[in-house]
C-alpha cells in the first residue's frame, strides 16, 4: 500500500507542477525544475514551492490526525481537537491585525508557530502530568475555544474592510503564490514534528489496548501524550502558519485508511501522511482549474469534499 500511495503522490505532485496559468510543455517543465531554460524562474520560484507546501501541509495534517486518533483512541480526533490549529490561526491573524506581517514578512509564519507552541504548552499544562486522555481533550477544547474567540475578536475589531477580508481569507487556507522562503520556514518544523509523531507509533499500538495495559507494557503514557501534542504543534503549527487553516484532511484521511491498516495505529501513520499529501495536492490542482473569478481557497475545497464524504462514511458505519 505504501508503494501505491507513494506512486500516487508522485503522480499528483507532477500533475501539480504541470498545472498553472502558463501552459508549459513537459520538456520545458523538466528543464525548469533544474533551473534551465525560459521556464526556470516560473517552475523554481512559483510552482515548486507551491507543490512542496501542498505536500508538506497535507502530509502533516494526515499524519497528526492519525497520531491523535491513536492517542485519544477516538476516531473523531484531529489537530483541531487539541487546540493547535485554532491557536496557530490566531497567531497568524494577530500578525496581520497588528501589521507585523506588513513590516516584516517572516512575522506571519513565526507568529503562527508561536501560537501553536503556546497552545501545546497550555494544553499539556492544563491536562496535567500523566493525566488521562479525557483531561487532554477538555484542555484542548478549552484552548481551542479561547483561540477561536480571540480570532473572532480580531476580526470584529478589524480597522477596515480590507484588513478584515485579508484575515478571513487567510483563515480559509491557501498555498497560492508562496515563495521558497515559506518552504524554508515551514519544512524543518514539519519534518521534526513529523518525526516525533512517527516515533510514537509503537506507544500508540500499546495504547490501543488501554491506558493501564500500555503502562504495564512499559509505555509512559504521559510522555507519549506530550510527544504527540508537541509533534502536532510543530508540524501543524508550521503548516497553518504558511498556508492558513485547512480542515477535514486530518479527520477524513485516517478514516479512509484504517480498514486497510488492520486497525493498528502505528501502521496508519505513514499511509495517512501520504494520503493527506495526495488529497491537498489534488485539491490545490482543482482550485487552479476551476474557473472562478478568484482562486477558491483550499480549506473551502477540502471541507466541501470532506464533509459529505464523512457523512456518507458515518451513515455506512451506522447501518453496518
Amino acid at each position, binding site marked *: 500500500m505504501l508503494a501505491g500511495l507513494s506512486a500516487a503522490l508522485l503522480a499528483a505532485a507532477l500533475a501539480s507542477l504541470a498545472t*498553472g*496559468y*502558463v501552459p508549459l510543455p513537459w520538456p520545458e517543465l523538466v528543464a525548469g525544475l533544474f533551473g534551465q*531554460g*525560459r521556464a*526556470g*524562474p*516560473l517552475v523554481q*520560484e*512559483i*510552482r515548486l514551492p507551491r507543490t512542496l507546501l501542498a505536500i508538506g501541509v497535507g502530509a502533516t495534517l494526515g499524519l497528526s490526525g492519525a497520531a491523535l486518533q491513536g492517542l485519544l483512541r477516538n476516531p473523531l480526533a484531529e489537530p483541531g481537537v487539541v487546540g493547535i490549529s485554532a491557536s496557530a490561526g490566531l497567531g497568524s491573524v494577530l500578525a496581520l491585525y497588528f501589521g507585523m*506581517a*506588513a513590516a516584516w*514578512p517572516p512575522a506571519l509564519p513565526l507568529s503562527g508557530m508561536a501560537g501553536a507552541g503556546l497552545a501545546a504548552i497550555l494544553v499539556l499544562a492544563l491536562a496535567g502530568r500523566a493525566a488521562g486522555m479525557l483531561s487532554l481533550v477538555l484542555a484542548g477544547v478549552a484552548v481551542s475555544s479561547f483561540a477561536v474567540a480571540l480570532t473572532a475578536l480580531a476580526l470584529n475589531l478589524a*480597522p*477596515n*474592510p*480590507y*484588513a478584515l*477580508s*485579508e484575515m478571513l*481569507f487567510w483563515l480559509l487556507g491557501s498555498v*497560492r*503564490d*508562496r*515563495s521558497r*522562503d*515559506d518552504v524554508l520556514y515551514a519544512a524543518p518544523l514539519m519534518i521534526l514534528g513529523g518525526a516525533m509523531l512517527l516515533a510514537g507509533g509503537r506507544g500508540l499500538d500499546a495504547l490501543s489496548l488501554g491506558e493501564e495495559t500500555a503502562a504495564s507494557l512499559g509505555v509512559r503514557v504521559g510522555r507519549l501524550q506530550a510527544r504527540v501534542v508537541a509533534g502536532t504543534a510543530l508540524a501543524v503549527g508550521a503548516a497553518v502558519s504558511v498556508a492558513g487553516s485547512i480542515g477535514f484532511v486530518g479527520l477524513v484521511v485516517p478514516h479512509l485508511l484504517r480498514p486497510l491498516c488492520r486497525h493498528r495505529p502505528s501502521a496508519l501513520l505513514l499511509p495517512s501522511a501520504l494520503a493527506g499529501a495526495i488529497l491537498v495536492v489534488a485539491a490545490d490542482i482543482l482550485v487552479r482549474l476551476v474557473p472562478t*473569478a*478568484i*482562486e477558491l481557497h483550499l480549506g473551502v475545497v477540502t471541507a466541501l469534499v470532506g464533509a459529505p464524504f464523512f457523512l456518507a462514511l458515518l451513515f455506512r458505519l451506522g447501518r453496518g
Partner: protein
Amino acid sequence: MRSSIRRRLSGPAAMGAVLMAASPAIALPTVVSINLCADQLALALADRAQILAIGPLAADPALSAMHGEAAGMPTVRGTAEEVLRLAPDLVLSGAHQQRKTNALLERMGFRVMALPSPDDVEGVARMTVAVAEALGHGPRGRRLAAEMRAAFRVPAGPPTASALVWRPNGFVSGRGTLSDAGLAAAGLDNAAARAGIGAWGTMPLERLVARPPDLLLLEDYMAEKSSRAQALLVHPALARLSPPMRVAAVPTADWLCPGPWMAGAVGRLRDLAAEGRG
C-alpha cells in the same frame, strides 16, 4: 533567469525613466493590475496600450467606477504565474490580500506598487500622482489629483443638513474617512462623526431612531440587493419616523475604492443636498 536579467538591467532602466520624462517617444512602461482598486487607477491613468491585464472585477458596474474602460480588457486572477507570463514593467497591487503575491513577485525582480488605502483626500491625491508617475503619465496624474482636490473643497458656510452613510449591518463612516470628506464637501454634516464614531464603526438602530439624520445615504449596491442589512433598514421603527427620513443611494462604485473618480460621489452628494434644500 528573468530576475537576473532584470537586476542587470536596473541601472539602464533607471536611466530610461529619466530620459522618458524628456522624450515621450520612448515606450511607456507596461502594467498588470491584480487588485480592484489598482485596476481602476491603472485604467484612469495609463494609456490603454500600456495595460496588459487587469483583475476580473474592474468591469463590474456595481463595483468599479471605470467599468466602461475595463470592458474588453484581458483579465487575470491575480496570481504570480500570470504576471510572470505577461512580464509587465510594473505590477499594481493591493497591500492586503495580495501580500504573498507581492512578496513573491518582488523576489523575482518585478517592480510592485502595493497601493495603500488612504483615508484622506491628500493621501488619495499623493497615491494618484505616484502611480501616474510610475506609469509615465505624471502630468495626467497631477491634473486628476488637482481636479479631485477641487471637488473635495469644503464650501463656505455652515452645513445645510445632516446625513448618515449607512452600510450593510449598520456600518457607518465616521470622522477622518473619505466619506466624511465627501459629505463635508457637499455641505452636509456627518451624523456619524457627530455621534463620536471614529473611522469605521457601527451605529445602533436605536440611536438612529432617537436622532435621525435629515438624509440617510445607502450604497446603491445595498439598495438593490436584498440582504439582512436592508431588512434592518425597513425596520418598522424607521418607517414610523415623523417626519419621514429622506433615503437616497450613492453608487457604490464611486467611492468603494479611493481614487480621482470619487469626485463623482461628491457630485451626487451635492445634488442630494441641493434637492433637500429645494
